[in-house]
């Protein structure tokens, strides 16, 4: 190997090292960037946004299913815990799921895993004050890995004639920041 190559070797190694750092860094940042952009598109934080049946004009989130209705609640727990109250149908598939700011799906529950007609989800950060409990028969207490993320409700359109009723059900689902009372240990 010539002396010139030996002289350039440290620079080549440094270039590859920078490439590796940028590659791994961009892989880490990409999901956070995509998530932040999607949350902005979906609407105000800590509010449920029921959507219409996806079609070719639906451009907020990639690969929407035209057979499902969605309601999305971008959450920001810096203002306190979040209470989600959802109406649960049992005639068709329904699920509620939670995603952290890195796009990980850290919680999901579907209609077959819920006995009643409604579900309350209390979402908070570890160490955040405990919110007062509502009157829901079924309740899930959930610790979010990140301050920001998304709650997503899906329901299957089993019959086109049921779309208005399913849309009405999603509109009755709520998502709100709640006042706190006690410290969660």
């Amino acid at each position, binding site marked *: 190997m010539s002396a010139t190559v030996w002289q350039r070797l440290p620079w080549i190694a440094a270039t590859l090292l920078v490439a590796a750092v940028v590659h791994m860094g961009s892989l880490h940042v990409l999901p956070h960037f995509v998530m932040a952009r999607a949350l902005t598109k979906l609407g105000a934080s800590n509010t449920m946004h029921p959507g219409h049946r996806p079609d070719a004009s639906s451009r907020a989130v990639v690969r929407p299913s035209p057979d499902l209705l969605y309601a999305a609640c971008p959450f920001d727990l810096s203002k306190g815990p979040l209470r989600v109250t959802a109406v649960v149908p049992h005639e068709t598939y329904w699920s509620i799921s939670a995603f952290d700011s890195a796009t990980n799906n850290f919680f999901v529950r*579907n209609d077959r895993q819920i006995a009643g007609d409604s579900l309350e989800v209390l979402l908070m950060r570890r160490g955040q004050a405990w919110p007062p409990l509502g009157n829901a028969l079924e309740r899930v207490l959930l610790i979010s890995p990140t301050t920001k993320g998304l709650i997503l409700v899906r329901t299957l359109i089993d019959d086109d004639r049921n779309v208005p009723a399913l849309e009405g059900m999603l509109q009755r689902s709520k998502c709100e920041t709640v006042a706190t009372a006690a410290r969660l240990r």
Partner: protein
Amino acid sequence: MNLALKISAVVIVGALLGLFATWIAVVRGDMPGGVSNGPWKTSLAIGSTQSDPYTRASVALHGLFALNRSETIYYTATSDADGNALDGACRYEIAGRDPDARWWSITAYGADDFLIPNPANRFSVAKTTVQHNANGSFAVQVGGANNSANWIPTGAGAFSLTLRLYNPGPTAAIDPVQTMLPTLKKVGCP
């Protein structure tokens, strides 16, 4: 070349190389760590908090808000059974029986990962909409002209198909590589 210039060159070239590697790995390429069942590909780590950085970045770009595998299995086909890229100028046939799931659907997406505009406003077939034959099987035309329930329009350019299995049954959940899925064959091109 002075030292500052050399360091700048290292940083710029290194950064470009790193970003190019990311583009190759997750923007342009197949799902990292994916497995295949015929033309249908999936990753066992979709939606999981345990997924690797490559899978997580790929899902963020091509399947944001995907549920984890216990709830839903997502398969994507970008090529037919012979390995040729799906082309909106051609016609294809999806044939088989209901996959092992509470509910399933097959949806066509354009190269931009959104639903493909078409005059019929049709984008998918599903367990609840497909017309089955008397023996329980079904055949769906993808692309071309048709107006039956078993038809998915595709537009003119490159496209892909997503097969969703909601609440997968035991055979699909345990072995998504071997579970029975519909076939996807090219019928012809004009």
